[in-house]
């Protein structure tokens, strides 16, 4: 379980997160919604300890996220992150990018088993094997993004944080990615946080929706509840997304 308790984070005088609390259990898919710039990416970065909160805490499987490198490494082994930027390493091939986590966290010991894992995760994400020897610069942005999803999956994490996994994808790929997320939660029992602007997906398969507004949780609850919510931002989001 990921437990986020009263998390606050400011940059200079600007308070980006203000006492944000929620939980994510195994097999659960939590969607985080909010306007651009509200602090969704900052929230995810606080969860895996890339940013340090000013106050409040994050616990993942009863380990508290600190600035201690050894603890962080332990936590990051079980909690993967897909960044808003694809964040592939430009100087490494797709194959080497996919193997980075396996090397860093030493989950597999032989090159052969790492290569095998790289191929199988690529396939799981619906990507062709021919990508393996390509470099990030040869791929489109969305393709890079999908490879970065595969890179996080290669570690078989118990929790996954997705920062806008479908932004920019065509409807078919969006559906495919959503299906993958659902599959991971249901079959592999992964606890998942998805930051997204995709209202339809949120309402259809989120177990829980967290709506951030001005640093606070303006709404928290299931998709059906969200649809009936009177929270002004929720109402306007629904209206603009034409989800009724």
């Amino acid at each position, binding site marked *: 379980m990921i437990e986020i308790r009263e998390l606050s984070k400011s940059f200079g005088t600007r308070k980006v997160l203000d006492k944000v609390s929620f939980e994510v259990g195994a097999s659960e898919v939590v969607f985080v919604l909010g306007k651009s710039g509200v602090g969704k990416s900052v929230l995810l970065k606080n969860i895996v300890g890339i940013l340090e909160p000013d106050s409040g805490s994050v616990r993942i499987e009863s380990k508290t996220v600190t600035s201690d490198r050894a603890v962080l490494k332990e936590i990051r082994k079980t909690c993967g992150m897909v960044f808003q*930027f694809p*964040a592939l390493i430009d100087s490494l091939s797709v194959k080497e990018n996919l193997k980075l*986590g396996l090397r860093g966290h030493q989950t597999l010991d032989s090159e052969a088993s790492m290569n095998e894992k790289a191929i199988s995760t690529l396939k799981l994400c619906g990507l062709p094997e021919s990508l393996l020897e390509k470099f990030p610069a040869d791929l489109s942005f969305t393709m890079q993004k999908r490879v970065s999803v595969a890179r996080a999956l290669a570690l078989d994490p118990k929790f996954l944080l997705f920062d806008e996994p479908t932004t920019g994808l065509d409807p078919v790929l969006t559906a495919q990615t959503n299906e993958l997320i659902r599959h991971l939660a249901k079959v592999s029992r992964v606890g998942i946080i998805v930051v997204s602007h995709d209202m339809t997906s949120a309402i259809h398969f989120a177990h829980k929706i967290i709506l951030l507004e001005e640093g606070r949780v303006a709404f928290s609850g299931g998709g059906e509840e969200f649809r009936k919510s009177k929270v002004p931002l929720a109402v306007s989001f629904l209206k603009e997304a034409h989800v009724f």
Partner: protein
Amino acid sequence: MSSNYFVAGIQEIGQVAIFFTRLTGIFFRKGVRIRDIVHQMFEAGVRSVPITVTSGLFVGAIMAIQINEQLKDFGAQSFLGGLTTSVTIRDVGPVLIGFLLSGKVGAYTIAELGTMKVTDQVAALECLGIDALEFIVLPRLVAVFISSFLLLVVGLTLTVFGGAYFSMLALQINVQNYMNNVPQLITTASIVVGVVKSLLFGMLIGVISCYKGYTTVGGAEGVGKSVKNGSVLILVWIVILDFGISTLSRLIQEIFGVL
């Protein structure tokens, strides 16, 4: 306000020192992969060869013209080669070529690391259990240090030829005569000072560019800022270090009678 800048400046020196200590620690504990260094040296160093060669030759030529102006009033032009070479290698050469490299090797490294930082490549590595300092910063530091040092040495050597060639071409001075008193006036001391400066400037360019790149925040705009601030910082420190080393070498000379 100005005292704030001063305090911030001092703090930054402290942070750079901590950063450097961490990297040295990793270097001695874990070493660094030769393949990564070679790759980076090619990226940042080899591309700077043409510019270093050109500027080396011209710096030599410019110094020869200036010193010739002074010497000819005393009819002492026979010392031109020796004086030009000595002054260029000790002082003007390292500074000017160092400036050039800060804009080329330094800026390249800051931009590259800065881009990796603001596009979350650095954070992604950390999430994948890889120490970004060890994996991407250290190889760059070593590569920038080695390439800057080598480029400085090449550039300095070429100043000698630039001076000689230009003296022959434009000042109608016989190359033989020009070179004649080079060995007399250019002492071991000049060479030592030149090499020491090249080593330190190389290290300076490496450390500051890696630090500025690695600590970049704020998107593409932030990368631009880091490149600008970093390059200027390197220039300032080259001048300060140059002054320091020159003063120190003079002191050593006075006290021990060498250098």
